């Protein structure tokens, strides 16, 4: 496959960039942060994304989707990274759409996918039970009562968990607490009694919640009972490819702002960008970002191509992007100097968002370890 965007993909990227600059720019991230009862994103911006069909991108055409693929979606997600734009696109149109399309039966697909594509519902993946990313560590239980499952347990760090219409929940239906077998997936209606939502303030000021399910009706079973692990593994791969794409956007923007600052800021009578030590550090960052562009695009292409080695490539991409994000965002603060440490200046938002993206669905070492294991060493 050629590592170049098609014209269609390039155009979509440019259109996304314009829309986000107009309707979900960095400054909006600041205002959302300062309105603590917002749900972390602007309803208006989300509506515009919906109007442009973004939630439909990964949905098959049979279900009112655009079937435009992960490379296409990744371009939008990258631009959201640049503008630090918040929206339920990732939780609903990437994660939930992926799981339902992957293992939902025809009825479930017909019920949910068109509503996702049209932006009518938001859905959140409730699969974490601790700060460590170990989706096999499931202690939430689903027990059969009168041939219906009842879900009980606590989920952590549910992205867009506050105000979601439905949760996709992993629950143990058999096996021991860290077995990969015995995990089942359910779609749970969020409007039921017995669901306690505790919104969490995270450093990137998005919508996160801890969600407690107390004997809640499981709603719909997603995929084969006890065999939810493969779907969890697949959605993890998809998630990390798009987290990498978003990191690519964050890192590029943080770098470009820093580069601009190096040209403008004067010390000792000259622009600090004229100091060779800083030039070499800037050049090193640029080089690393070029490496990132290649591996992110390859990972997204491998998802669309259903490449057998996609999991390994995505772990490589997530690890690479995490380490370059750490480099670039730390350098961005350091090279901005004192002003970079102030809340008043925007650069701090980038290091905080980057760290959240790095961490979700496994950080650098999780993926480096995974890469080594999948490579057979």
């Amino acid at each position, binding site marked *: 496959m050629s590592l170049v965007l098609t014209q269609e993909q390039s155009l979509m990227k440019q259109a996304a960039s314009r829309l986000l600059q107009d309707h979900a720019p960095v400054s909006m991230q600041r205002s959302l942060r300062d309105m603590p009862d917002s749900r972390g994103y602007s309803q208006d911006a989300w509506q515009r994304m919906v109007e442009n069909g973004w939630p439909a991108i990964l949905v098959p055409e049979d279900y009112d989707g655009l079937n435009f693929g992960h490379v296409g979606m990744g371009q939008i997600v990258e631009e959201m990274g640049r503008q630090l734009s918040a929206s339920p696109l990732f939780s609903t149109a990437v994660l939930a759409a992926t799981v339902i399309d992957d293992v939902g039966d025809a009825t479930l697909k017909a019920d949910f996918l068109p509503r996702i594509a049209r932006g009518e519902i938001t859905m959140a993946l409730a699969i974490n039970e*601790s*700060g460590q*990313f170990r989706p096999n560590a499931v202690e939430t239980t689903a027990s059969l009562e009168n041939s219906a499952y009842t879900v009980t347990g606590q989920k952590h760090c549910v992205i867009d968990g506050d105000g979601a219409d439905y949760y996709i929940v992993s629950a143990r239906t058999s096996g021991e607490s860290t077995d990969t077998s015995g995990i089942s997936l359910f779609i749970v209606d969020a409007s039921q009694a017995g669901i306690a939502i505790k919104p*969490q303030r995270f450093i990137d000021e998005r919508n996160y919640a801890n969600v407690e399910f107390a004997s809640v009706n499981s709603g719909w079973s997603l995929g084969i009972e006890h065999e939810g692990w493969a779907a969890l593994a697949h959605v993890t791969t998809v998630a990390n490819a798009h987290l990498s794409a978003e990191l690519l956007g964050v890192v590029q923007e943080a770098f470009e702002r820093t580069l601009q600052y190096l040209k403008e800021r004067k010390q000792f009578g000259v622009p600090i960008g004229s*100091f060779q030590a800083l030039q070499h550090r800037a050049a090193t960052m640029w080089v690393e970002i070029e490496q990132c562009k290649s591996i992110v695009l390859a990972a997204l292409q491998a998802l669309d191509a259903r490449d057998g080695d996609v999991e390994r490539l995505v772990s490589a991409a997530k690890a690479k992007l995490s380490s370059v994000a750490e480099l670039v965002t730390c350098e961005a*603060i350091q090279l901005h100097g*004192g002003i970079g*440490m102030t*809340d008043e200046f925007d650069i701090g938002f980038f290091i905080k968002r980057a760290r959240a993206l790095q961490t979700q669905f496994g950080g650098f070492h999780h993926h*480096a370890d995974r890469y080594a294991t999948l490579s057979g060493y």
Partner: protein
Amino acid sequence: MTDFRAETRAWLEHNCPSAMRRPLESDADICWGGRGWEFHSDDQRNWLERMVSKGWTAPTWPAALGGGGLSAEQAQILSEEMARIDARKALDNFGLWMIGPAILKYGSERLKKQHIPAIVRGDIRWCQGYSEPNAGSDLAGLQTKAEDHGDHFVVNGQKVWTSHADKCDWMFCLVRTDPDAKKQCGISLVLFDMQTPGVKALPIKLISGSSPFCETFLDNVKVDKDQVVGEINDGWTVAKYLLTHERETIGAFGLKGPGGDPLGFTVRRVCGVTNGKIRNGGIRSDVARWDIDAKAFELTMQRVNEANSMQGVGNASAMLKLVGTELNKRRHEILMEAHGTDALNWGDGSPNGRAVARDWLRSKGNSIEGGTSEIQLNIIAKHILRLG
């Protein structure tokens, strides 16, 4: 010396409240002192009063000025005996670390009598007015002006990154007293009360959400000429001395977390264990690397301190500042990785009760404040290695 150790041990045993024999949980537990200080507990108050009565808040300062009057060797014993029982510092602030030693070295007798006893007692809390907007690492480009009005100066300008200026009582401040002199010449170090008319301090909010620094505006602030430390127009000498002190202090910060847990233990607890080892071999390797570097740094601080008093190392403060702050940043990166998504929480009610992310973000400033890491590398290259 054996007697001194025995007496000190007995005195501490008798006078240090048990609540003061625990490592600090966070910066909030420090006793900073000052006019507006509210003690967190009777124990904190009693401990300060007792230590002040011995002059041991400033053990080596002259007894005549309220200090402990101890020799370096005795002070070392006091420090060891306090460490032995995990005794907290009774008082900890910029007066003790920085302006006090500078006044003792460069100040007039009048200044010593006025300021030193108040610092020892914790009556006055000091802040530092060095950095200015648009100056950053370039201290010699200082723009705050002090106009000569005979027996006093009138100071106008703006300072940034003044630590806790909103809570401090006096400022030591670099000002330009000769507008025609070049760069480092024509600068003086002056002292003034923050309640002087024309002084206004506004807190700066940091990316970590906290506000340990202020912008301070100086608008026709009157400063008596006898409040100049050292010679007028020769403040650069005093400022260099202070910067060296500041570097060492910042460099020595925070190799252990609040609570003092070694990094390896924290990561082990948080990440889990396989066969007795931290589960993820890559994180374990990063921790070991950091730990070894931190051990070498700890020994280097010790060696430099000892050598300073014996065979002279010189210019070492740039190294300590550089290495200490870079290590502290790496430590926080490792902690963020180890804590996973728990670390993303601002910590207002997090399960660990500790703000991993706030400390991580705050640590990014360590290599900027008190002279950036780049400035320290320049100093080492030019003044130690003579590259230029």
